[in-house]
């Protein structure tokens, strides 16, 4: 007897999973067709692997100075050459990938969490709360983002972590507005009314209807924002407001080496290239995700 009831319950559980797998494989089918997105994915995965295994790949540490060897051009011993302290630029870029990716991911996750929370509050409950939250977003967006992050870092004190916090704060309104607009749309959908009509409360409606229907644009915006966050972190580093020496942050490496741009161009070329590649990679992924996740692009 118990076996038969087991049989009624189990297939559905398996089917639940398979329908999830079907959804993923359908997403993959449309994502795969997008060649630039695949290139972006490969670039980003490549950098993620480099960052994870930096310890094993890097020939030298981030601060192994060798003044005798300073400003050496690229060679088999130093693939990307050495900087003004004789440090191996290739090794520094590998460890720098850790810093940049960390800033990119963490700051975006932070902005998504805070932005979503505020966006849901503003969009779902509306009224005075909406006015207050939306005006705060407007004020934050009125500043050029780099200027605002500089101001926040100036208050918190220059460090990579404070730069991360500043970038996260600056990007909160981007997600907040996005989520708010999704909430306003989804809230009026008939399935939300139907959910109310069977006695569903606000919290359940938010978690079961509003958020799941807002996730696709958040993912897309998030991926694109990782690129800008990395760029902003590099910018702050360049201005001396982010990572501090001797951390091998790419923007910081650029600014430290800029006086050698004529005599030793490799000192700026490779950190700059690393920034460009990662940013382009995330942008390509973001565009690909937008095409694959946008319901209007589906037939």
């Amino acid at each position, binding site marked *: 007897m118990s076996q038969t*009831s087991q049989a009624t319950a189990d297939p559905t559980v398996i089917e639940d999973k398979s*329908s999830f797998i079907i959804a993923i494989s359908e997403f993959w089918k449309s994502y795969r067709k997008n060649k630039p997105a695949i290139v972006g994915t490969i670039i980003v995965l490549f950098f993620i692997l480099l960052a994870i295994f930096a310890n094993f790949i890097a020939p030298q540490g981030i601060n192994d100075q060798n003044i005798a060897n300073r400003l050496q051009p690229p060679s088999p011993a130093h693939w990307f050459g050495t900087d003004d302290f004789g440090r191996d630029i290739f090794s520094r870029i590998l460890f720098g990938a850790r810093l940049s990716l960390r800033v990119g991911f963490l700051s975006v996750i932070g902005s998504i969490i805070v932005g979503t929370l505020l966006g849901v509050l503003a969009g779902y409950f509306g009224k005075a709360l909406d006015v207050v939250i939306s005006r705060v977003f407007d004020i934050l967006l009125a500043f050029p983002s780099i200027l605002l992050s500089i101001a926040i870092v100036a208050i918190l004190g220059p460090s990579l972590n404070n730069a991360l916090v500043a970038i996260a704060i600056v990007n909160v309104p981007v997600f907040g507005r996005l989520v708010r607009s999704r909430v306003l749309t989804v809230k009026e959908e008939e399935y939300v009314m139907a959910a*109310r009509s069977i006695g569903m409360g606000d919290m359940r409606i938010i978690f079961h*209807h509003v958020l799941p229907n807002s996730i696709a644009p958040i993912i897309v915006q998030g991926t694109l924002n990782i690129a800008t966050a990395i760029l902003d972190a590099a910018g702050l580093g360049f201005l001396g407001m982010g990572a501090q020496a001797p951390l091998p942050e790419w923007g910081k490496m650029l600014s430290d080496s800029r006086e050698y741009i004529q005599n030793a161009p490799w000192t700026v070329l490779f950190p700059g290239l690393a920034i460009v590649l990662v940013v382009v990679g995330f942008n390509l992924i973001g565009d690909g995700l937008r095409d694959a996740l946008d319901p209007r692009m589906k037939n």
Partner: protein
Amino acid sequence: MDETLLKVEGLQTSFFTDDGEVPAVDGIDFSVHEGEILGIVGESGCGKSVTSLSIMGLLPSPPGKIVGGHIYYKGEDISRAKESRMRKLRGNDIAMIFQEPMTSLNPVFTIGEQLMEAIRLHNHLSKKEQVERSIELLKLVGLPRAKELLAEYPHELSGGMRQRVMIAMAMSCNPKVLIADEPTTALDVTIQAQILDLMVKLNKETHTAIIMITHDLGVVAQMCHRVVVMYAGKIVEEGPVKEIFSHPNHPYTEGLIKSIPDLHGKKDNLYTIKGSVPRPGSIAKGCLFAPRCEFVMDKCRVNAPELSGSVHKSRCFLHQEQGRKEVHT
């Protein structure tokens, strides 16, 4: 059959717009008994949907607000009940299905997830029991392959199937009253008939009272026991379906019945009621139907008739006068 489940008394619902208060429902009374199918008929904008949303406590507010009257469910006034109380009632006691089955299901979850969510709302059941109950519900609404359907997404289903799923969700907690707001309007004719048959079947099997909101008198004739005809926020006629169809008292009801296409009749133009529904609140005095009425009398433009009669009620001087004459002679 006799016990009154839902009683609406003098319900007034208004919308507060920039142009001032617009009364959408203007003092209506009706009741629903256990196991009954009550039809509410009227043109677009006559207040049918607002009535149902008022009962459910789901009026978009602002701008909508119940400004007067009471709604009693089993003797309890729910017109001013707290949201937490209403949440308990919704689904458990009173449930509702909507016009658009295509958009009434969340596109990102499977049928099973949504059904089980509805079941979980009011019952504490194990996962296995939820699955069993879902399958049972899908079978109840006549869906084949119930088990496979649980894992399918709404876009994989046809409109008729989705409406069946919606009915299954509404029935998940055995409500006493089911409000169906034009459930067949968005479906094609053959599917319409199936959904109506299903609702009649559910009414017989589960004894759930149904309030059928529609603009289609054919639907009313096919399934309802009693019918309420609404015009511009007021009830103009109310009574048993057979009575209304054989002896419509109000010229509006008569017009509605005459404008049903007849399979066997002559192929002339259909009867139409001239003009359109007045904007709520635009007629200050007299009968609201007077500007469009064929039998309009002088007093119709000055005084508003009351709803009169016992079982078969109507709001028309014409009928009241005829009735009086019949009594006198």
